[in-house]
């Protein structure tokens, strides 16, 4: 599997500082190399989101980590608007979606580089990582 497009965009999302939590560190190891690493159940082959613990399908209590393709399609989305300030100005809206990875699981996805009006079910997307100066990298989904 090849490395994904490295994003050194200047349009980084202001999120504060992201730290590892000791439970999902392999996700961030992958992110550091621009690879989407998620959970996989070795006994039954099913794929899960990085925060899944245990396989609800076969009952395996341990999931391993494995690189996913990073390819996804859009399931549903919302344009989240910030609350207007006293002077009527509002922060720029955020586009959030549920995306279906090629391997099957859905991820909570922050969409980037998309026009809200052009979004549609099934839109091809690709995992992409931002590497802020401080803290861990984070995941965005951009048009494939």
């Amino acid at each position: 599997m090849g490395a994904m497009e490295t994003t050194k965009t200047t349009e980084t999302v202001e999120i504060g500082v992201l730290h590892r939590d000791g439970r999902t560190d392999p996700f961030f190891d992958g992110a550091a190399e621009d690879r989407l690493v998620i959970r996989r159940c070795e006994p039954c082959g099913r794929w899960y989101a990085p925060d899944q613990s245990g396989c609800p399908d076969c009952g395996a209590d341990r999931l391993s980590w494995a690189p996913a393709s990073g390819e996804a399609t859009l399931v549903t989305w919302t344009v989240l608007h910030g609350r207007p300030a006293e002077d009527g100005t509002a922060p720029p809206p955020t586009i959030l979606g549920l995306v279906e990875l090629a391997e099957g699981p859905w991820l909570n996805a922050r969409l980037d580089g998309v026009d809200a009006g052009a979004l549609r079910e099934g839109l091809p997307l690709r995992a992409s990582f931002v590497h802020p100066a401080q803290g861990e990298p984070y995941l965005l989904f951009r048009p494939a």
Partner: protein
Amino acid sequence: MGESAAIAGLGMTELGKVYGRSARRLAADAVRRAVADAGLGLADLDGLVVSHGMSGSPGVELAAALGLRDLRVLTQMNAFGATAGAMVAYAAMSVISGAATTVACVFADAPLRPKQSSGAAYERSAREWYGYGGMTAALGFRSVNALYALAARRHMLRYGTTSEQFGAIAVSTRRWATMNPLAQMRDPITLEDHQSSRWVAEPLHLLDCCLVSNGAIAVVITSADRARDLARPPVHIWGWGQGHPGHRRERGSEFGLTTGAAISGPIAMKMAGVTVSDIDLCQLYDCYTYTVLVSLEDYGFCAKGEGGAFVESGALSPGGSLPTNTGGGQLSGYYMWGMTPLSEAVIQARGDGGERQVAKRDVILVSGNGGILDHHSTLILSPHRKEA
């Protein structure tokens, strides 16, 4: 037939922008009012079931705060918006089994502070985030509005449901609220008002979203035999059910398309010995307009995917075929989680609805919804004792 249970008392504090009282104090006030409403005293209680909202209080220590002694049932329950229905079911089972005779169920919350917007009351901000879940939260997945918007959009994509159809629910619910002196929002609104209200999380407008309220509501449950001799007309508990679909977040998921009402509804109706065509009025959990629409489908009031056309028909409005959220619900009335639909059901069953009283009220469906459509509860209530 054997023993059955009934709601004998209803206690509600002031609701809305009620400041200066903690959630525990509000809960205590609601329990006192519910007991007095039933014509009982606190010493008559031998059971207490507690649930709280965002405030994280009260818990079982409420019993001590009320000075209750020698309780036989005391617990805290939480299935979020489905809790009220679950509490009533547990209290009914306690009474029927003989574990207790007189059980109060209470919900309280006080998320609002003076000079703070409703949204801010439920918002958490942090500059430091931890792990994968922290990352998605940092990127925006800490907004309940956004999560319901994702669900609502999915319904629209699959079934062609429109924002105007969500708006029909906002308008009919407000029509009911105009006749409820307890409702926080009593000015009539039009579909145009709904469409022009600001976006919160597309496709949800501001008028698709519930209020935020401080306050507490309690009910007292006892045997149907005993309730008959108490102060107020009994509201008989005919049936109950829960449904927790556990939709996976993966290919083929039904997220946004079906809810636990598809499980809890048939269980409660079978227990009650009724079918969907017997329901005279509905009190449905309406954290969002969309929640009402999808719940109506899952209960079988219309076919899956036809909720939009059903609500546009005017069925839910005053004079409609299925009066729904007759106190203004949580969209326009007051936001007391599952106690909002339950309290209005008790008011309607007793015939206390005043200007908004629905004439035919023999069978009332009460629906709770918690999490992001993760938890559902259903109650079937009636002013009549169920025939054997």
